């Protein structure tokens, strides 16, 4: 580990914390439906969208209606993507004449991008036409991110709203207004600015498919090109993570230098961090937001330290062959060990899944942290919207546990937490271990599953475990040695991604609806304080024990066994 490496981590965290309030305030304006300076330009577009689709943005939707409209909209966009991918060969903007995407891969990919996962069983440059990249995939990078943020707004309203005194039903907002505002006034303008920065830095933006060069040694090299920068910007900002190229943000055309790399890491975390502030603002006490951010940041820094330490220490197997230093297998020289380790923790703490180094080639414990981050449910900052609503489900459990310990009625930010909310929260949280461990176990005994891993021994098991963890947690990064483009893995992972997204969202929205109907309970001397270090410590404990402990046996079989083999020099 180097001073420069730690300085990079410190500056990254510093900039992020400085961004939390301004980003959070901007998001709060969108949450409230207030006018922003951008309304002067984009206001007519917003109103036009509502008029053409017959939407009344003032309608306050019940949680059921919010959920149904969200699901049908996601299903419609998913279908569009599936059709576009299947018909790719006959559609325009296909300069290299790529064939249609096969049915199982198109199924997997359509779900993957709809669910904000961006798991890719394919290599972008050899599979997707420019039209598919733009219309089928970039579109979902916006929509799945906007959906996540809208859902977080809905849950915030559950906590913040007071039922009307005349007994009328209390809704949780309007889905259409939420996604339209988030897209027009946040995601699109930021993507334009970041996209232009990426182009200026060397990220291609062209409709050409490729260019031929004759190298200095006289060989022929064909470089894949395309509209990369426009996709890159929203890919990071929306914590999508699906690369234009197979190597993702390790590809020099996606991430040409250390500065673009830093901006990409900040883009991944910016909105998720801001949302903690927005939450505090929404419930009328910004300290509530800071307490959550403190818990997230603590978990993040511990993870970063472990991965950086392990990657800098390097692989003893290579040291014994006379190759000293940190682990550079699967890493780019321009990023080195520090920025690769940091990126890997950021991308898995958030549900991004973009990579600037190959996690499969990390040291055993260095690669375990990305895996563990996802198993926690990606609540360490997390995906845009998904991180904070996932974390708030843990907060509900935390006040419940605290209530049991001290014998008080659990309350959180002015709302009583009762058996219905706790049951729904547990239901949502239980999806993760059930599906991840169930599907991993199945794949680890079936021949079609065992055909997948590239590596042998415990690392091969880690590849399978990582794939299902990544899918259910909606991350999308991979231990990419796994051959996943098979009907078995495409099908299983497709189902895993769908369940991991929507089987958490629906109970979460039910919690929002249930909370919105409750009257406000003012804080008294008897309330358990949900700000301050004691609360932050309790949150961390609940996330680790409830979220993490379930996975310990599977980690022992994979990365921990791999680590013991690595230090003994046992190879597979």
């Amino acid at each position: 580990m180097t001073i420069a490496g730690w300085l990079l981590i410190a500056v990254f965290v510093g900039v992020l914390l400085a961004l939390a309030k301004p980003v959070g305030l901007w998001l709060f304006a969108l949450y409230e439906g207030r006018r922003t300076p951008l309304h002067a330009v984009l206001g007519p577009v917003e109103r036009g969208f509502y008029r053409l689709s017959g939407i009344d943005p003032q309608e306050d939707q019940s949680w059921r209606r919010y959920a149904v409209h969200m699901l049908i909209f996601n299903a419609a966009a998913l279908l569009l993507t599936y059709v576009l991918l299947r018909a790719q060969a006959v559609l325009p903007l296909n300069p290299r004449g790529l064939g249609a995407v096969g049915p199982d891969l198109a199924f997997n990919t359509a779900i993957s991008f709809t669910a904000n996962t961006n798991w890719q069983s394919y290599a972008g440059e050899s599979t997707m036409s420019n039209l598919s990249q733009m219309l089928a995939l970039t579109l979902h990078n916006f929509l799945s991110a906007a959906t996540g943020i809208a859902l977080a707004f809905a849950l915030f309203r559950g906590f913040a709203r007071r039922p009307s005194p005349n007994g009328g039903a209390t809704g949780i907002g309007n889905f259409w207004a939420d996604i339209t505002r988030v897209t027009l006034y946040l995601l699109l303008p930021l993507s334009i600015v970041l996209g232009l920065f990426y182009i200026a830095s060397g990220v291609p933006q062209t409709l050409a498919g490729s260019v031929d060069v004759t190298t200095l040694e006289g060989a022929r090299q064909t470089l894949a090109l395309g509209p990369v920068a426009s996709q890159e910007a929203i890919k990071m900002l929306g914590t999508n993570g699906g690369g234009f190229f197979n190597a993702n943000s390790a590809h020099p055309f996606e991430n040409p230098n250390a500065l673009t790399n830093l901006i990409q890491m900040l883009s991944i975390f910016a909105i998720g961090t801001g949302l903690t502030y927005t939450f505090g603002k929404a419930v009328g006490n910004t300290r509530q937001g800071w307490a959550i951010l403190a818990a997230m940041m603590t978990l993040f820094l511990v993870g970063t330290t472990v991965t950086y330490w392990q990657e800098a220490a390097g692989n003893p197997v290579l040291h014994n062959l006379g190759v000293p230093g940190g682990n550079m297998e699967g890493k780019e020289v321009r990023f080195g060990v520090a920025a690769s380790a940091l990126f890997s923790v950021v991308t898995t703490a958030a549900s991004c899944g973009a990579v600037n180094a190959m996690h499969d080639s990390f040291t055993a414990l260095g690669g375990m942290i990305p895996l563990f981050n996802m198993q926690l449910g990606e609540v360490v900052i997390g995906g845009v919207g998904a991180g904070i609503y996932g974390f708030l489900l843990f907060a509900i459990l935390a006040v419940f546990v605290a209530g049991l310990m001290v014998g008080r009625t659990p309350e959180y930010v002015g709302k009583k937490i009762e058996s219905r909310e706790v049951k729904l929260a547990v239901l949502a949280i239980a999806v993760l271990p059930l599906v991840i461990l169930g599907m991993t176990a199945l794949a680890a005994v079936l021949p079609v599953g065992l055909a997948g891993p590239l590596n042998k021994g415990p690392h091969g098991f880690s590849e399978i475990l990582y794939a299902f963890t990544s899918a259910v947690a909606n991350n999308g990064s991979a231990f990419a040695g796994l051959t996943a483009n098979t009907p078995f893995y495409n099908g299983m992972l497709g189902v895993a991604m769908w369940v991991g997204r929507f089987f958490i969202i629906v109970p979460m929205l039910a919690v929002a609806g249930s909370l919105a109907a409750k009257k406000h309970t003012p804080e008294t001397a008897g309330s358990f304080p949900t700000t301050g270090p004691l609360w932050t410590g309790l949150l961390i404990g609940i996330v680790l024990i409830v979220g993490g402990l379930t996975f310990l046996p599977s980690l022992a079989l994979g990365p921990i066994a791999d680590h013991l083999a690595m230090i003994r020099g046992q190879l597979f």
Partner: protein
Amino acid sequence: MNNDILTSLRPALVMTLLFALLLGIAYPLAMTGIGQAVFPSQANGSLVMQDGKAVGSTIVGQAFTSDRYFQTRPSAAGEGYDGLASSGSNLGPTSQVLADRVKADVQSHQAAAPGRPVPSDLVTTSASGLDPDISPEAAFYQIERIARARGLKAGEIRRLVERQIERPIFGFIGEPRVNVFELNRRLDGVSAKPSR
């Protein structure tokens, strides 16, 4: 519930269409237009032209196998530096295949520069298989081999390398690195290519 589904159909279909036009067509095309007009070189792959034809991109690595050139890192992209098949090796830390490959590469490098430990980036594959850079140590390691092949003085090549080292921004954003394509072009400038 049924009512919720019915009321969702028109907005779901029309909004999908409108967003598709705005975000999937207008946005990338507008960015392409601006990119091509304002940053034409970067938007088209940062290509370097020599005698009217492209000889490479300044930000994507290419294969160098000859003793007369600084070599790039081992590559898992296709047969090596395949611009249509970016990829890492994805070999894990306890892989026998990885250990065998590194061992063979160490031996071949040490044959040219006996007795010195090989810088790790020279015997490890990058994440993309298209890494344009090597570390300054990896460049210094290759100087004597190139000096012999080109009949140049080692000191002269060393000065060339030192001029090509890119330092981290503010000392901590990035790693010290040498772009191999740029370095080799300078090298050809000092002693011309052999006629082939």
